């Protein structure tokens, strides 16, 4: 059974959602790991959930990255094992330097909370390896700082190395600017590290795993991880 650890920081608030989705819906063996711990309980998958770790003080994710647990997350990642950071988790991975770039306040300054469409632009990784390129996923976002920024050289690298996994799109897969909810460069919603085992994404796949929640498309990401991590 796939073992997942959900890291909990003071101010995390999507930790129980992740726990529920991964355990009760996806059937993984899930445990919480408090940010002060140094061990990840021998897990296969690390999940850094959303929320407002440390009240977003200084910058989103800026304080969380100094938590003791992050050293273990770094080691886990360096061993090529999967790490997924969702929303604030993505912001933490950026601040920790495990992913390139940074987050700015949303264009328009609004906290955006709604279901969006994502186009899967890369499947050469374990998070979307079971999906077809161009697949469209209906998954909610909920953030005030999801306006992904990186410089031109970094963007070129991300594109050349096919590390942009998700882009905000229309229901038909168009990535025109009007389907960009927050101003992110190139409609970026999720990216990989160079080794392709660390994924950061602003949308919440744990919130789209049951019909009751309006979409089950998030399952396809978890199913992919399950299938590819055997």
């Amino acid at each position, binding site marked *: 059974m796939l073992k997942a650890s959900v890291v909990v920081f003071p101010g995390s608030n999507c930790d129980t959602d992740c726990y529920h989705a991964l355990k009760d819906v996806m059937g993984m063996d899930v445990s919480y790991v408090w940010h002060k711990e140094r061990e990840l309980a021998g897990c296969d998958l690390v999940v850094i959930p959303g929320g407002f770790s440390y009240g977003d003080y200084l910058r989103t994710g800026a304080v969380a990255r100094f938590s003791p647990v992050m050293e273990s997350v770094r080691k886990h990642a360096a061993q090529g094992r999967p790490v997924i950071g969702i929303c604030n988790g993505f912001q933490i991975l950026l601040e920790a330097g495990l992913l390139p770039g940074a987050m700015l*306040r*949303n264009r328009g300054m609004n906290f955006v909370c709604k279901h969006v469409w994502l186009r899967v632009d890369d499947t050469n990784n374990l998070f979307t390896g079971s999906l077809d390129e161009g697949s469209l996923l209906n998954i909610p976002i909920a953030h005030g700082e999801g306006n992904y920024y990186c410089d031109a050289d970094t963007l070129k690298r991300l594109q050349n190395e096919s590390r942009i996994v998700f882009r905000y799109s229309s229901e038909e897969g168009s990535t025109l600017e009007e389907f960009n909810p927050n101003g992110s460069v190139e409609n970026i919603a999720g990216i990989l590290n160079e080794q392709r085992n660390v994924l950061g994404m602003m949308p919440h796949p744990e919130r789209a795993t049951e019909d009751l929640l309006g979409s089950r498309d998030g399952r396809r990401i978890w199913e992919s991880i399950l299938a590819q991590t055997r």
Partner: protein
Amino acid sequence: MYKAEINVTLKKSVLDPQGQTVLHALSSLGYQDAKALRIGKYFELIVDEKDRKTAESRIREMCDKVLINPVIEEYSLQLTENAVLRG
């Protein structure tokens, strides 16, 4: 003791959504002469160091490691000697 006054802004190449929004608000209030606005933050940091050189290099290290995100931000630093701890 040295006091560092650190002013942080987004890099010129980075769009500042907050500054843009406030500039727009100013102009809709009739301040058409307001032409550009960038919002940043300010740190006042007191360090217990004997000499200026060490103080500056320690402070710059703290900026680069924690206080600033060099991907999007830049800063200016002003150092004053004989700083007093208050509060």
